[in-house]
């Protein structure tokens, strides 16, 4: 897969079809990758693609100056691109999406937990197996055992935005909302307490917002200074407000790529908030983000048969 990607990227750059290919290259720590902005055909050799490529690259598209770019596109990039095109943030013909098959990403959090937080000195993928080496120990197991839990329910309907379709067709769609059902066992009080604890950990670095390819406001409400909407205290209510407003702003737009949770340096994962809103949108309004570039925006379209029993 990596070989094909490199070849396509090098060709596109050599031909001048695009001025930049956005992909991943090996990172500086074990099992980490980092975004690659390939501008010369020679750069394409550095491209890699495997389950450690966990940054959503589409988030960078909005800041690029290049006229035409190619995007290494897992389903997450493709779905994000659909939303960006739908919101007229990116001209569709400016981006050539090179489709990549995906069976999920390794979750660094799941991996750390499986290894009881032992320090990883080396890690590599050998086919479906993950090999990790520490100080005086080595373990090997199928990488899917540490797959991001959110990837497990991800089955992507073809977003139809690829320039080159993925080699392998997407597997049949699973139950995206199964993760939420597991939470119904929690009482509202328990959920609130869980949320409060997450907010207490939050250090307001906004890595979640910055990593989110759909957090695109020119000025985030959290950054407003005149007047400041968030207070100067470290009270958890500030972080709760931030994360709730962020969730509302992403309703019908979040493609559940998980960039927010992966970016968090202190282990806050609030993807269930976004997923819950995605389910509301799906069940009430038959709205599915990341599929149809022509779709009307969730908040901004009205149909006579919309359910509106919540409007008093």
């Amino acid at each position, binding site marked *: 897969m990596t070989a094909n990607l490199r070849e396509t990227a090098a060709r596109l750059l050599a031909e001048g079809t695009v001025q930049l290919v956005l992909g991943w290259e090996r990172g500086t720590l074990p099992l980490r990758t980092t975004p690659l902005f390939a501008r010369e055909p020679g750069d394409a050799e550095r491209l890699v693609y495997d389950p450690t490529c966990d940054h959503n690259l589409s988030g960078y598209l909005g800041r690029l100056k290049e006229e035409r770019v190619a995007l290494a596109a897992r389903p997450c990039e493709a779905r994000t691109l659909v939303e960006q095109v739908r919101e007229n943030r990116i001209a569709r013909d400016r981006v050539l999406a090179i489709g990549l098959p995906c069976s999920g990403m390794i979750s660094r959090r799941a991996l750390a937990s499986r290894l009881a937080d032992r320090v990883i000195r080396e890690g590599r993928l050998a086919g479906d197996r993950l090999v990790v080496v520490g100080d005086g120990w080595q373990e090997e197991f199928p990488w899917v055992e540490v797959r991001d839990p959110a990837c497990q329910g991800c089955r992507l309907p073809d977003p139809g935005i690829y320039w080159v379709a993925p080699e392998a067709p997407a597997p049949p769609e699973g139950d995206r909302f199964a993760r939420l059902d597991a939470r119904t066992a929690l009482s509202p009080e328990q959920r609130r307490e869980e949320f409060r604890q997450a907010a207490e950990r939050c250090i307001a670095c906004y890595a979640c917002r910055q990593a989110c390819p759909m957090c695109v406001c020119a000025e985030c409400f959290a950054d407003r200074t*005149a007047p400041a909407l968030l207070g100067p205290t470290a009270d958890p209510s500030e972080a709760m407000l931030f994360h709730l407003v962020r969730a509302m702003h992403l309703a019908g737009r979040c493609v559940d790529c998980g960039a927010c949770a992966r970016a968090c340096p202190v282990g806050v994962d609030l993807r269930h908030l976004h997923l819950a809103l995605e389910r509301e949108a799906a069940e009430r309004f038959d709205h599915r983000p990341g599929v149809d570039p022509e779709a009307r925006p969730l908040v901004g379209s009205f149909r006579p048969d919309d359910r509106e029993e919540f409007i008093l």
Partner: protein
Amino acid sequence: MNPYLPHLAVIQEVIPETASQDVKTFRVAFAEPEVRDGFRYEPGQFAEVSVIGVGEAPISITSSPTQEGYLEFAVKRAGVMTTAMHHARPGDYLGIRGPYGNHFPYREMEGKDVVFIAGGIGLAPLRSLITFVLDPANRDRYGAVSIIYGARSPGDLVFKWELERWRQRDDLALEVTVDRGDASWQGRVGFVPQVLRELAPRPENAVTVTCGPPVMIKFVLQDLEKLGFTPDQVITTLEMRMKCGIGKCGRCNIGSRYVCQDGPVFSYEQLRQMPAEY
């Protein structure tokens, strides 16, 4: 030691400056006599002014140390804090801590001609030095003093009452100009740099002190250079977003200099050595 704790001060007078009242001058006196007597400052320094419960902002002291018993701040309504300050009335309390920053090099300027060039609210920090230089106790130490002051419109001129007093003096050349006049305006119309070129002050044994909007400063610096002023003969004062005012909060640096401590007064000579990030 809690260097963030302000002293309370009472507003004595609020003077609307501009026609739109977007600039007001506040005359304040410290509530406690020992603070009032102990507060010593130099022309060009600033203070952190608080509207308690709203916030704090760095504001240059526009009064002069030669004026005892009170401080004056000319404040343009821009953000939340300055808007709240504009709502304040005589008798209301403010918090004040300082003075902070360096000051105009008034000792080094002795024996020289002084040319003040200001635009809009930029006259506020210069006024402290102008008043200081014009004070009877100091006036003999300086040569010819001239002031070129401009604003967008007659209504945007600040310190009109002060301008009138300055105009009466025969030891001072005052030129006031506006970008656009109106029906009642009898004075000059034209940009500050145009007036500067026309008056063409001589650089020999002179120093200029300038403050105003960035675009004015840019052209003033070019014109001063053409007139033969060297960068060390040009003094300016900067503003940056600040919080603590004492070199800790980390936001007002230009290169390795903190505007709150190493500034706000810089010579053009110094500015040229610093990154153009202000």
